[in-house]
């Protein structure tokens, strides 16, 4: 896990979110999930990708407070370090 950089995490999160529907250009750190039409089902899928690829388990309560793309990137990065 120590080899995962924040940039790699950011790129992977953006890639995953883009595959859920929103245009990649809209997926900035400040973009809210609401604005991107990313709902709770999408966030569970994102958590599964993170668990599968980084071994980091994100629970429902971890995800509940997340509002923006930056929030989720920071959470994953903090768990990865």
């Amino acid at each position, binding site marked *: 896990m120590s080899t995962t950089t924040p940039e790699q995490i950011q790129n992977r999160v953006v890639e995953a979110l883009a595959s*859920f*529907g929103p245009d990649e250009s809209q997926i900035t750190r400040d973009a809210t999930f609401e604005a991107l039409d990313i709902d709770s*089902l999408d966030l*569970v899928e994102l958590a599964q990708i993170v*668990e*599968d690829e980084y071994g980091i388990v994100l629970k429902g309560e971890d995800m509940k407070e997340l509002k923006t793309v930056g929030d989720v990137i920071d959470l994953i990065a903090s768990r990865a370090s």
Partner: protein
Amino acid sequence: MRHNVVITGLGAVTPLGVGASTLHERWAQGTCGIVDGAGTVTEYEPSEHLSVKEARRLDRFSQFALVAAAEAIAQAGWNGGAGDHPYDPMRIGCIVATGIGGINTVETQHDVMRDKGARMVSPLGIPAYMPNAAAAAVSMKHGLRGQMYGIVSACASGGHAIGSALRMIQYGDADAAVVGGSEATLTEFGFACFNSMQALSESGISRPFDLRRDGFVMGEGAGMLVLEEESAARARGAEILGSVVGYGSTSDAFHLTAPEPTGVPASRAIELALADADVATDGLDYVNAHGTSTQLNDAAETAALKRALGEEQAKRVPISSTKSAIGHLLGAAGAVEAVATIQTLRTRVIAPTLGYEVPDPELDLDYVPGEARPLVLGNGRPPVAVSNSFAFGGHNVALVFRGPEAA
């Protein structure tokens, strides 16, 4: 007093292409959509019809329903936008039948569970494979907020859906309904299950009523209709494509998969539908048969038609099977065949039972061999047709449709 119900929109996604008129035109031309023993929808590309999000969240069976519904709603002139309908959205019903539901999703997610563990199963699994997913998708896409549900009765599902929507509007519970059926079961597991039953054709040829028939050919697709209360549809100047005038349904209570051989329960469904429509047997111009190409169905259906119509009328009325051109669409069959039947009444062209060449001496009705023929009317009245649907489990449905005054 019950309300009259007219048809103002049709949509279809079938092995013959995307579009309701495409289905009937190509069938009438003698085109068969069956390749290598399967009626696969090959002219549908999700990205041409759906957003990334829709395509990801919808099983193939729901996608077909959405595309067929959009065609039907556009033809009805509803503009298609949520909140942009000619009726109170709470008074527009939506029923989408399926026999199986989202089996593609079940198989894919089951693989995920075996490969990566239960924790990795997608949260979109259930909402994609639940049998009501197609109805939910159509309702959500178009903002239809009246009664909305799926209907499950195997290969009679599509027929039951239309019958239920008919009653909904006749009774006054809705002003309009978007209704049909959808199926996408051409998967490894789907074929394995039907093969084990020895239900599928070994030759890979769907030739209903032919002596050489050896089972059905599985197909996929969807058919959707927009139904409206007649006076409201006329008041808004809608083009009337035809009417749903009769519905009858019974059960065999006989065997899990085999039809009741005398055809008594099936014939009763036809009799009930004709009585519901107030149509006499000599007023029937066409039968769109269930005609699966199995030994048992085609014999039992022939017996049922003779019993319901009487020998003389049963031998007079032309009977053809859409399954000869697209295979058996299971829970979508009744809806797709309703679309084909209405196109028959609108165009007054009866498409043939493709592949029917060697008559079975036991089956002696007019199955429209060879080529399409004109639908001939006795006295200038609008044409009337019956469409049958029968199913594993013993479900029998007959629907009666009346075409427009002029072709």
